[in-house]
């Protein structure tokens, strides 16, 4: 369903092999943040954090957007794939429920028809 090319997987793997970058992903999972927020949280320079964010961005794990003088980071398209997988699983759960509901309804319909016939004398 979702396809991954190997170059991108290498990039992802490299991106998450670093503890700081994993921390940044976890942090962004809780909410968007600017590069300087992240730098402060992880006790490093803005330049150092920019590098880490760049690696995450190349792997498609993070996207950034510059608004005014602030560059805001958020979880990237990979997160969307996760969401798509969740929606698909959610759909399958409901489809399974509704298929069983069809059987219940079929039975109610039959019963109603039978009762209707009885009432027709």
């Amino acid at each position, binding site marked *: 369903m979702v396809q991954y090319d190997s170059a991108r997987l290498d990039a*992802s793997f490299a991106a998450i092999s670093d503890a700081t970058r994993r921390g940044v992903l976890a942090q962004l999972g809780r909410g968007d943040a600017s590069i300087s927020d992240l730098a402060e949280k992880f006790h490093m320079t803005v330049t150092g954090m920019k590098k880490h964010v760049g690696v995450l961005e190349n792997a498609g794990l993070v996207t950034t957007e510059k608004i005014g003088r602030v560059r805001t980071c958020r979880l990237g398209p990979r997160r969307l794939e996760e*969401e798509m*997988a*969740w929606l698909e699983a959610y759909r399958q759960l409901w*489809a399974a429920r*509704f298929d069983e*509901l069809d059987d*219940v309804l*079929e039975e*109610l319909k039959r019963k109603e028809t039978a009762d209707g016939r009885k009432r027709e004398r």
Partner: protein
Amino acid sequence: MDANVKGESTPMKNPTTVERKSEREVVVTRTFDCPARLVFQAWTTAELFRRWWVPKSAGLNLISCEMDVRVGGGYRLVFRIDASNTMAFFGKYLDVTPHSRLVWTNEEGGEGGPITTVTFEEKEGKTLLVMSELHPSKEALDASIGSTDGMGETFDQLDELLVTLGAA
């Protein structure tokens, strides 16, 4: 109507669609080939509801299902997870409009849980069902997408996805 000769010759099922309608809302749609009053009955009668709410493939055991279907009335579903653990889902009905609309809260996660709205719209003997789950915030819906409770199948799939990612 005819008995199926083989499992795979099951008549075509109506499709179920799911859409993230907004940052806070997920919507499920499905048509049923019968009048709205029957669909409504199957959603509001505990003995009928428990027959379809837990699909066999989910492998969950629903041990009790209580529904007091009226505005302000409560519902409570209890599942057995394993020999020593059960899990309850509960909340109360905010709107009960026979054959057309049901609204309830989901309070197992504390206050401010999602609100579920189900509408039943009959047209030419068929019923269009639209179920919306509205979360209090984008963060709440995102968290439910990322969380691990209540949806075994979901997370098996996510696990698979993550294995695919990690295996390269």
